[in-house]
Protein backbone atom coordinates (compact mmCIF):
# COMPACT_ATOMS: atom_id res chain seq x y z
CA UNK A 1 0.00 0.00 0.00
CA UNK A 2 1.29 3.41 -0.94
CA UNK A 3 0.35 6.67 0.74
CA UNK A 4 0.90 9.98 -1.03
CA UNK A 5 1.84 11.97 1.99
CA UNK A 6 2.61 15.38 3.46
CA UNK A 7 4.29 15.35 6.85
CA UNK A 8 2.39 18.39 8.23
CA UNK A 9 -1.07 17.32 7.03
CA UNK A 10 -3.48 16.29 9.78
CA UNK A 11 -5.41 14.08 7.33
CA UNK A 12 -2.27 12.28 6.15
CA UNK A 13 -1.33 11.75 9.79
CA UNK A 14 -4.71 10.06 10.46
CA UNK A 15 -3.78 7.38 7.96
CA UNK A 16 -0.17 7.02 9.11
CA UNK A 17 -1.36 6.76 12.72
CA UNK A 18 -4.06 4.18 11.95
CA UNK A 19 -1.59 2.05 10.01
CA UNK A 20 0.96 2.27 12.84
CA UNK A 21 -1.61 1.26 15.46
CA UNK A 22 -2.60 -1.72 13.30
CA UNK A 23 1.01 -2.69 12.64
CA UNK A 24 0.41 -2.20 8.92
CA UNK A 25 3.40 -1.17 6.82
CA UNK A 26 2.73 1.76 4.49
CA UNK A 27 5.15 2.97 1.89
CA UNK A 28 4.92 6.76 1.70
CA UNK A 29 5.72 9.13 -1.12
CA UNK A 30 6.29 12.73 -0.07
CA UNK A 31 4.31 15.26 -2.12
CA UNK A 32 5.65 18.83 -2.10
CA UNK A 33 2.44 20.39 -0.73
CA UNK A 34 4.29 23.45 0.63
CA UNK A 35 5.92 25.43 -0.87
CA UNK A 36 5.69 23.51 -4.20
CA UNK A 37 1.88 23.01 -4.30
CA UNK A 38 2.59 19.76 -6.15
CA UNK A 39 -0.84 18.41 -5.10
CA UNK A 40 -2.37 20.94 -7.52
CA UNK A 41 -0.15 19.89 -10.43
CA UNK A 42 -1.50 18.26 -13.57
CA UNK A 43 0.42 15.04 -12.78
CA UNK A 44 -1.07 14.75 -9.33
CA UNK A 45 -4.60 15.58 -10.50
CA UNK A 46 -4.35 12.66 -12.88
CA UNK A 47 -4.22 10.51 -9.73
CA UNK A 48 -6.68 12.56 -7.67
CA UNK A 49 -8.77 15.07 -9.64
CA UNK A 50 -9.68 16.87 -6.40
CA UNK A 51 -6.00 17.76 -5.93
CA UNK A 52 -6.06 16.87 -2.24
CA UNK A 53 -3.90 14.79 0.09
CA UNK A 54 -3.71 12.06 1.24
CA UNK A 55 -4.15 9.49 -1.51
CA UNK A 56 -3.92 5.78 -0.72
CA UNK A 57 -3.23 3.32 -3.53
CA UNK A 58 -3.51 -0.44 -3.04
CA UNK A 59 -3.32 -2.34 -6.30
CA UNK A 60 -6.14 -0.98 -8.46
CA UNK A 61 -7.84 0.75 -5.52
CA UNK A 62 -7.37 4.52 -5.24
CA UNK A 63 -8.79 6.25 -2.18
CA UNK A 64 -8.82 10.03 -1.78
CA UNK A 65 -10.79 10.48 1.45
CA UNK A 66 -8.95 9.86 4.72
CA UNK A 67 -12.02 8.45 6.50
CA UNK A 68 -12.44 5.90 3.71
CA UNK A 69 -8.80 4.96 4.19
CA UNK A 70 -9.41 4.40 7.91
CA UNK A 71 -12.36 2.12 7.08
CA UNK A 72 -10.28 0.20 4.56
CA UNK A 73 -7.33 -0.31 6.92
CA UNK A 74 -9.59 -1.32 9.82
CA UNK A 75 -11.71 -3.74 7.75
CA UNK A 76 -8.61 -5.47 6.46
CA UNK A 77 -7.16 -5.77 9.95
CA UNK A 78 -10.05 -7.65 11.55
CA UNK A 79 -12.63 -4.92 12.24
CA UNK A 80 -11.67 -4.40 15.91
CA UNK A 81 -11.29 -0.67 15.21
CA UNK A 82 -14.80 -0.43 13.71
CA UNK A 83 -16.63 -0.89 17.02
CA UNK A 84 -18.72 -3.81 18.24
CA UNK A 85 -20.86 -3.99 15.09
CA UNK A 86 -24.11 -3.09 16.88
CA UNK A 87 -26.45 -0.71 15.05
CA UNK A 88 -25.95 1.94 17.72
CA UNK A 89 -22.18 1.87 17.68
CA UNK A 90 -21.94 1.61 13.90
CA UNK A 91 -24.05 4.77 13.67
CA UNK A 92 -22.05 6.53 16.37
CA UNK A 93 -18.81 5.82 14.53
CA UNK A 94 -20.31 7.37 11.39
CA UNK A 95 -21.51 10.34 13.43
CA UNK A 96 -17.98 11.08 14.67
CA UNK A 97 -16.41 10.50 11.27
CA UNK A 98 -18.70 13.25 9.95
CA UNK A 99 -17.82 15.40 12.97
CA UNK A 100 -14.14 15.07 12.08
CA UNK A 101 -14.85 16.96 8.85
CA UNK A 102 -16.13 19.88 10.94
CA UNK A 103 -12.87 19.83 12.90
CA UNK A 104 -10.87 19.94 9.68
CA UNK A 105 -12.94 22.81 8.32
CA UNK A 106 -12.51 24.90 11.45
CA UNK A 107 -9.47 24.03 13.61
CA UNK A 108 -7.64 22.56 10.62
CA UNK A 109 -8.13 25.67 8.50
CA UNK A 110 -7.18 27.96 11.42
CA UNK A 111 -3.93 26.00 11.66
CA UNK A 112 -3.20 26.37 7.94
CA UNK A 113 -3.95 30.09 8.24
CA UNK A 114 -1.63 30.66 11.20
CA UNK A 115 1.15 28.33 10.08
CA UNK A 116 1.30 28.27 6.28
CA UNK A 117 -0.39 31.65 5.59
CA UNK A 118 -3.62 30.28 4.06
CA UNK A 119 -6.34 32.87 3.46
CA UNK A 120 -9.40 32.75 5.70
CA UNK A 121 -11.49 34.55 8.32
CA UNK A 122 -9.38 33.48 11.28
CA UNK A 123 -11.85 34.68 13.94
CA UNK A 124 -14.73 32.76 12.33
CA UNK A 125 -12.58 29.64 11.96
CA UNK A 126 -11.52 29.74 15.60
CA UNK A 127 -15.11 30.37 16.77
CA UNK A 128 -16.31 27.34 14.82
CA UNK A 129 -13.39 25.33 16.22
CA UNK A 130 -14.20 26.29 19.79
CA UNK A 131 -17.87 25.34 19.26
CA UNK A 132 -16.78 21.91 18.04
CA UNK A 133 -14.35 21.49 20.96
CA UNK A 134 -17.10 22.34 23.47
CA UNK A 135 -19.35 19.74 21.91
CA UNK A 136 -16.57 17.18 22.07
CA UNK A 137 -15.65 18.09 25.65
CA UNK A 138 -19.26 17.71 26.73
CA UNK A 139 -19.53 14.28 25.10
CA UNK A 140 -16.24 13.03 26.52
CA UNK A 141 -17.13 14.27 30.01
CA UNK A 142 -20.42 12.33 29.92
CA UNK A 143 -18.49 9.33 28.64
CA UNK A 144 -16.05 9.57 31.55
CA UNK A 145 -18.95 9.60 34.04
CA UNK A 146 -20.05 6.32 32.43
CA UNK A 147 -16.55 4.86 32.65
CA UNK A 148 -15.72 5.22 28.95
CA UNK A 149 -12.62 7.03 27.74
CA UNK A 150 -13.00 6.82 23.96
CA UNK A 151 -15.63 8.41 21.73
CA UNK A 152 -17.89 5.38 21.36
CA UNK A 153 -16.88 3.04 24.17
CA UNK A 154 -14.07 1.62 26.25
CA UNK A 155 -11.95 0.76 23.22
CA UNK A 156 -10.80 3.14 20.48
CA UNK A 157 -12.27 3.10 16.97
CA UNK A 158 -11.52 4.80 13.68
CA UNK A 159 -13.74 7.64 14.96
CA UNK A 160 -11.15 8.51 17.60
CA UNK A 161 -8.35 8.44 15.03
CA UNK A 162 -10.35 10.63 12.64
CA UNK A 163 -11.03 13.27 15.29
CA UNK A 164 -7.78 13.22 17.24
CA UNK A 165 -5.30 15.02 14.91
CA UNK A 166 -7.12 18.32 14.33
CA UNK A 167 -8.08 18.47 18.02
CA UNK A 168 -4.55 17.83 19.24
CA UNK A 169 -3.18 20.36 16.73
CA UNK A 170 -5.68 23.09 17.73
CA UNK A 171 -2.97 25.19 19.46
CA UNK A 172 -1.17 25.45 16.08
CA UNK A 173 -4.14 27.53 14.95
CA UNK A 174 -4.23 29.67 18.08
CA UNK A 175 -6.92 27.66 19.93
CA UNK A 176 -5.82 26.56 23.38
CA UNK A 177 -6.86 23.20 24.85
CA UNK A 178 -6.45 24.42 28.43
CA UNK A 179 -10.21 24.66 28.95
CA UNK A 180 -10.93 21.03 28.03
CA UNK A 181 -9.77 18.51 30.65
CA UNK A 182 -11.75 15.60 29.21
CA UNK A 183 -10.31 16.21 25.76
CA UNK A 184 -6.82 16.28 27.21
CA UNK A 185 -7.40 12.97 29.04
CA UNK A 186 -8.79 11.43 25.82
CA UNK A 187 -5.74 12.72 23.95
CA UNK A 188 -3.50 11.13 26.56
CA UNK A 189 -5.33 7.81 26.21
CA UNK A 190 -4.77 7.87 22.45
CA UNK A 191 -1.12 8.82 22.80
CA UNK A 192 -0.66 5.92 25.24
CA UNK A 193 -1.92 3.31 22.74
CA UNK A 194 0.68 0.69 21.76
CA UNK A 195 2.22 1.60 18.42
CA UNK A 196 1.29 5.31 18.64
CA UNK A 197 3.35 7.61 16.42
CA UNK A 198 3.69 11.38 16.64
CA UNK A 199 3.72 14.18 14.11
CA UNK A 200 5.09 17.74 14.37
CA UNK A 201 2.89 19.54 16.90
CA UNK A 202 1.76 16.32 18.59
CA UNK A 203 4.32 15.14 21.09
CA UNK A 204 4.71 11.62 22.37
CA UNK A 205 4.30 10.85 26.06
CA UNK A 206 7.89 10.95 27.25
CA UNK A 207 6.73 10.02 30.74
CA UNK A 208 5.76 6.54 29.51
CA UNK A 209 9.34 5.79 28.58
CA UNK A 210 11.48 3.78 31.00
CA UNK A 211 13.97 5.77 33.04
CA UNK A 212 17.18 6.24 31.05
CA UNK A 213 20.04 3.92 31.81
CA UNK A 214 23.59 5.10 32.22
CA UNK A 215 25.33 5.67 28.88
CA UNK A 216 29.00 6.00 28.01
CA UNK A 217 30.23 9.60 27.76
CA UNK A 218 29.97 11.24 24.35
CA UNK A 219 33.76 11.07 23.82
CA UNK A 220 33.56 7.27 23.93
CA UNK A 221 31.15 7.29 20.96
CA UNK A 222 33.31 9.49 18.73
Amino acid at each position, binding site marked *: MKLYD*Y*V*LSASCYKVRLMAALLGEKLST*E*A*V*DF*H*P*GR*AHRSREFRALNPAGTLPVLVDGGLILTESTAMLVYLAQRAGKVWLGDGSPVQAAQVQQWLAFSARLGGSLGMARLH*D*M*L*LYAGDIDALRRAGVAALRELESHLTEARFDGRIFLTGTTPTIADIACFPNVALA*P*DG*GVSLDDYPSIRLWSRAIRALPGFI*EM*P*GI*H*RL*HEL*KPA*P*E*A*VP*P*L*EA*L*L
Partner: protein
Amino acid sequence: MIPAAVLNEWYPVAMIAQLAAWPGRQTLLLGSEINVFRDAAGAVVVQGADGPLAVTLAYGHVWACPGVPAHPLFPIPEADQPGRRLVDCGVVRVKCSPLRAVENFLDIAHFPFVHTDVLGAEPHTEVGRYEVQIREDSDEVWATKVHFYQPQAAKSAAGGIVTEYMYRVAAPTASVLYKTCPNNADEWDVIAIFVQPLTEELCEVWPWMALFDDTTPQADLIQFQQMIFLQDRSILENQIPRLLPLDPGKEIPTQADLTSIAYRRWLKRKGLTYGAQMVAA
Protein backbone atom coordinates in the same frame (compact mmCIF):
# COMPACT_ATOMS: atom_id res chain seq x y z
CA MET B 1 10.82 53.99 17.80
CA ILE B 2 12.96 51.33 16.16
CA PRO B 3 16.73 51.85 16.68
CA ALA B 4 18.77 52.70 13.56
CA ALA B 5 20.99 49.67 14.25
CA VAL B 6 17.93 47.45 13.68
CA LEU B 7 16.74 49.33 10.58
CA ASN B 8 20.18 49.17 8.94
CA GLU B 9 20.33 45.34 8.87
CA TRP B 10 19.16 42.94 6.14
CA TYR B 11 16.03 40.82 6.57
CA PRO B 12 14.48 38.09 4.40
CA VAL B 13 11.06 39.06 3.03
CA ALA B 14 10.19 36.53 0.29
CA MET B 15 11.28 33.48 -1.67
CA ILE B 16 12.55 34.46 -5.12
CA ALA B 17 10.79 31.49 -6.77
CA GLN B 18 7.40 32.71 -5.50
CA LEU B 19 7.63 36.34 -6.65
CA ALA B 20 4.69 37.75 -8.60
CA ALA B 21 3.60 41.06 -10.11
CA TRP B 22 2.03 43.84 -8.00
CA PRO B 23 0.66 43.61 -5.34
CA GLY B 24 2.89 40.55 -4.92
CA ARG B 25 3.54 39.42 -1.38
CA GLN B 26 1.86 41.75 1.10
CA THR B 27 3.56 41.35 4.43
CA LEU B 28 5.11 43.13 7.42
CA LEU B 29 8.71 44.02 8.16
CA LEU B 30 9.49 45.39 11.63
CA GLY B 31 5.80 46.24 12.05
CA SER B 32 5.49 48.18 8.75
CA GLU B 33 3.56 47.04 5.70
CA ILE B 34 5.56 46.16 2.61
CA ASN B 35 4.85 44.68 -0.83
CA VAL B 36 7.40 42.40 -2.45
CA PHE B 37 6.85 42.10 -6.22
CA ARG B 38 8.39 42.09 -9.67
CA ASP B 39 7.85 45.28 -11.66
CA ALA B 40 7.05 45.39 -15.38
CA ALA B 41 10.76 45.18 -16.23
CA GLY B 42 11.17 42.06 -14.06
CA ALA B 43 13.12 43.81 -11.30
CA VAL B 44 12.40 42.85 -7.69
CA VAL B 45 10.91 45.70 -5.65
CA VAL B 46 10.25 45.88 -1.92
CA GLN B 47 7.86 48.78 -1.51
CA GLY B 48 7.34 50.39 1.89
CA ALA B 49 5.05 53.28 2.87
CA ASP B 50 7.88 55.77 2.30
CA GLY B 51 9.28 54.33 -0.91
CA PRO B 52 11.31 51.35 -2.07
CA LEU B 53 13.74 49.58 0.30
CA ALA B 54 17.29 48.47 -0.47
CA VAL B 55 17.13 44.96 -1.94
CA THR B 56 19.57 42.06 -2.30
CA LEU B 57 18.78 38.71 -3.92
CA ALA B 58 20.68 35.80 -2.37
CA TYR B 59 20.28 32.19 -1.24
CA GLY B 60 16.89 31.77 -2.88
CA HIS B 61 15.39 34.72 -1.02
CA VAL B 62 14.74 38.45 -1.27
CA TRP B 63 16.51 40.48 1.40
CA ALA B 64 15.48 44.01 2.29
CA CYS B 65 16.97 46.73 4.46
CA PRO B 66 14.49 49.33 5.74
CA GLY B 67 17.25 51.82 6.67
CA VAL B 68 20.67 52.52 5.21
CA PRO B 69 22.54 49.21 4.87
CA ALA B 70 25.36 49.12 7.44
CA HIS B 71 27.16 46.48 5.34
CA PRO B 72 26.50 44.10 2.44
CA LEU B 73 24.49 40.94 3.10
CA PHE B 74 26.60 38.25 4.81
CA PRO B 75 28.33 35.69 2.54
CA ILE B 76 27.52 31.97 2.33
CA PRO B 77 30.36 30.79 0.05
CA GLU B 78 28.91 27.26 -0.03
CA ALA B 79 25.94 28.59 -2.02
CA ASP B 80 28.23 28.84 -5.06
CA GLN B 81 30.07 25.57 -4.51
CA PRO B 82 29.61 23.11 -7.39
CA GLY B 83 27.77 19.91 -6.55
CA ARG B 84 25.56 21.34 -3.83
CA ARG B 85 21.79 21.20 -4.05
CA LEU B 86 20.11 24.39 -2.97
CA VAL B 87 16.73 23.74 -1.38
CA ASP B 88 14.10 26.41 -0.61
CA CYS B 89 11.82 25.04 2.11
CA GLY B 90 9.03 27.66 2.03
CA VAL B 91 7.73 29.80 4.84
CA VAL B 92 6.25 28.97 8.24
CA ARG B 93 4.70 31.60 10.49
CA VAL B 94 5.45 31.38 14.20
CA LYS B 95 3.92 33.46 16.98
CA CYS B 96 7.18 34.21 18.74
CA SER B 97 9.95 36.80 18.87
CA PRO B 98 12.16 36.52 15.77
CA LEU B 99 15.14 36.38 18.09
CA ARG B 100 13.70 33.37 19.92
CA ALA B 101 13.36 31.55 16.59
CA VAL B 102 17.07 32.08 15.97
CA GLU B 103 18.03 31.16 19.51
CA ASN B 104 16.10 27.88 19.27
CA PHE B 105 17.97 27.07 16.05
CA LEU B 106 21.25 27.46 17.96
CA ASP B 107 20.24 25.07 20.73
CA ILE B 108 21.30 21.43 20.71
CA ALA B 109 20.20 20.28 24.16
CA HIS B 110 16.51 20.04 23.19
CA PHE B 111 17.11 17.55 20.37
CA PRO B 112 16.33 14.31 22.30
CA PHE B 113 13.12 15.75 23.74
CA VAL B 114 11.64 17.67 20.80
CA HIS B 115 13.18 15.89 17.80
CA THR B 116 13.03 12.47 19.43
CA ASP B 117 14.58 9.60 17.47
CA VAL B 118 15.61 11.97 14.68
CA LEU B 119 18.10 14.59 15.85
CA GLY B 120 18.48 13.05 19.30
CA ALA B 121 17.33 10.23 21.55
CA GLU B 122 17.34 9.52 25.23
CA PRO B 123 19.52 8.56 27.01
CA HIS B 124 22.08 10.28 24.76
CA THR B 125 21.37 13.76 26.09
CA GLU B 126 24.91 14.98 26.73
CA VAL B 127 26.05 18.13 24.93
CA GLY B 128 29.84 17.88 24.84
CA ARG B 129 31.99 20.92 25.56
CA TYR B 130 32.26 23.22 22.57
CA GLU B 131 33.78 26.58 21.71
CA VAL B 132 32.00 29.88 21.17
CA GLN B 133 33.38 33.18 19.98
CA ILE B 134 32.20 36.51 18.66
CA ARG B 135 34.47 36.91 15.63
CA GLU B 136 35.61 40.51 15.40
CA ASP B 137 36.62 40.39 11.71
CA SER B 138 33.23 39.26 10.41
CA ASP B 139 31.20 40.50 13.40
CA GLU B 140 29.47 37.12 13.69
CA VAL B 141 28.77 34.66 16.52
CA TRP B 142 30.34 31.23 15.94
CA ALA B 143 30.05 27.96 17.87
CA THR B 144 32.46 25.22 16.82
CA LYS B 145 33.37 21.65 17.80
CA VAL B 146 29.80 20.87 18.79
CA HIS B 147 29.24 17.11 18.97
CA PHE B 148 25.95 15.31 19.46
CA TYR B 149 24.68 11.75 19.11
CA GLN B 150 21.92 11.57 16.49
CA PRO B 151 19.76 8.59 15.47
CA GLN B 152 18.94 10.08 12.01
CA ALA B 153 20.97 13.21 11.45
CA ALA B 154 19.76 13.86 7.90
CA LYS B 155 17.31 12.47 5.38
CA SER B 156 20.28 10.66 3.81
CA ALA B 157 21.61 9.19 7.10
CA ALA B 158 21.10 5.44 7.48
CA GLY B 159 21.65 5.06 11.22
CA GLY B 160 22.88 6.70 14.42
CA ILE B 161 26.08 8.76 14.29
CA VAL B 162 27.86 11.35 16.39
CA THR B 163 27.35 14.49 14.32
CA GLU B 164 29.64 17.49 14.44
CA TYR B 165 28.14 20.94 14.09
CA MET B 166 29.28 24.50 13.63
CA TYR B 167 26.76 27.28 14.23
CA ARG B 168 26.98 30.78 12.93
CA VAL B 169 24.82 33.86 13.57
CA ALA B 170 25.44 35.93 10.45
CA ALA B 171 22.73 38.58 10.89
CA PRO B 172 20.37 39.42 13.77
CA THR B 173 17.65 37.14 12.38
CA ALA B 174 19.66 34.72 10.22
CA SER B 175 21.68 31.73 11.28
CA VAL B 176 23.63 29.12 9.34
CA LEU B 177 24.67 25.72 10.62
CA TYR B 178 27.27 23.37 9.23
CA LYS B 179 26.94 19.70 10.06
CA THR B 180 28.60 16.41 9.23
CA CYS B 181 27.54 15.40 5.73
CA PRO B 182 26.49 11.73 5.67
CA ASN B 183 27.35 11.48 1.95
CA ASN B 184 30.68 13.32 1.89
CA ALA B 185 33.14 13.17 4.80
CA ASP B 186 35.17 16.12 3.48
CA GLU B 187 32.30 18.56 3.34
CA TRP B 188 29.66 20.08 5.60
CA ASP B 189 25.96 20.14 4.90
CA VAL B 190 24.71 23.71 5.20
CA ILE B 191 21.31 24.46 6.72
CA ALA B 192 20.10 27.97 7.41
CA ILE B 193 17.07 29.71 8.82
CA PHE B 194 16.22 33.14 7.58
CA VAL B 195 13.74 34.83 9.92
CA GLN B 196 11.54 37.72 8.83
CA PRO B 197 10.55 39.87 11.82
CA LEU B 198 6.89 40.82 11.20
CA THR B 199 6.51 42.28 14.68
CA GLU B 200 8.42 41.84 17.92
CA GLU B 201 6.29 38.80 18.73
CA LEU B 202 5.52 37.38 15.30
CA CYS B 203 7.86 36.07 12.64
CA GLU B 204 7.99 34.07 9.43
CA VAL B 205 10.77 31.57 9.06
CA TRP B 206 12.34 30.45 5.78
CA PRO B 207 14.54 27.37 6.14
CA TRP B 208 17.08 26.93 3.33
CA MET B 209 19.65 24.22 2.64
CA ALA B 210 22.77 23.65 0.53
CA LEU B 211 23.43 19.91 0.61
CA PHE B 212 25.53 17.21 -0.98
CA ASP B 213 22.72 14.81 -1.81
CA ASP B 214 22.03 13.76 -5.38
CA THR B 215 19.55 11.01 -4.65
CA THR B 216 16.89 12.10 -2.16
CA PRO B 217 13.78 13.52 -3.90
CA GLN B 218 13.25 17.24 -3.37
CA ALA B 219 9.91 16.72 -1.60
CA ASP B 220 11.59 14.41 0.94
CA LEU B 221 14.33 16.94 1.69
CA ILE B 222 11.80 19.73 2.20
CA GLN B 223 9.50 17.62 4.36
CA PHE B 224 12.38 16.44 6.54
CA GLN B 225 13.31 20.05 7.26
CA GLN B 226 9.68 21.10 7.76
CA MET B 227 9.11 18.18 10.13
CA ILE B 228 12.08 19.31 12.24
CA PHE B 229 11.09 22.96 12.25
CA LEU B 230 7.40 22.30 13.00
CA GLN B 231 8.39 20.19 15.99
CA ASP B 232 9.97 23.39 17.33
CA ARG B 233 7.05 25.65 16.47
CA SER B 234 4.70 24.63 19.29
CA ILE B 235 7.55 24.96 21.79
CA LEU B 236 8.50 28.42 20.52
CA GLU B 237 4.92 29.67 20.72
CA ASN B 238 4.82 28.77 24.42
CA GLN B 239 8.08 30.37 25.52
CA ILE B 240 7.74 33.00 28.24
CA PRO B 241 8.60 35.86 28.40
CA ARG B 242 7.53 36.49 24.80
CA LEU B 243 10.50 38.82 24.17
CA LEU B 244 14.04 37.47 24.41
CA PRO B 245 15.67 38.72 27.63
CA LEU B 246 19.12 40.16 26.93
CA ASP B 247 20.01 40.63 30.59
CA PRO B 248 20.50 37.70 32.94
CA GLY B 249 17.67 37.23 35.41
CA LYS B 250 15.79 34.22 36.63
CA GLU B 251 17.20 31.96 33.93
CA ILE B 252 20.20 29.87 34.91
CA PRO B 253 22.22 29.04 31.78
CA THR B 254 24.28 25.88 31.66
CA GLN B 255 27.40 24.90 29.75
CA ALA B 256 25.20 23.82 26.81
CA ASP B 257 23.75 27.35 26.49
CA LEU B 258 27.05 29.04 25.57
CA THR B 259 25.92 29.91 22.04
CA SER B 260 22.67 31.43 23.23
CA ILE B 261 24.50 33.56 25.77
CA ALA B 262 26.95 34.80 23.13
CA TYR B 263 24.05 35.58 20.77
CA ARG B 264 22.27 37.62 23.44
CA ARG B 265 25.49 39.52 24.32
CA TRP B 266 26.13 40.23 20.64
CA LEU B 267 22.56 41.54 20.14
CA LYS B 268 22.86 43.76 23.19
CA ARG B 269 26.28 45.12 22.24
CA LYS B 270 25.02 46.03 18.75
CA GLY B 271 21.74 47.47 19.98
CA LEU B 272 19.69 44.90 18.05
CA THR B 273 16.82 44.99 20.49
CA TYR B 274 13.81 44.41 18.22
CA GLY B 275 12.09 41.34 19.74
CA ALA B 276 14.17 41.63 22.91
CA GLN B 277 13.58 42.91 26.42
CA MET B 278 16.28 44.68 28.38
CA VAL B 279 14.71 44.26 31.81
CA ALA B 280 15.90 41.09 33.52
CA ALA B 281 13.33 38.31 33.26
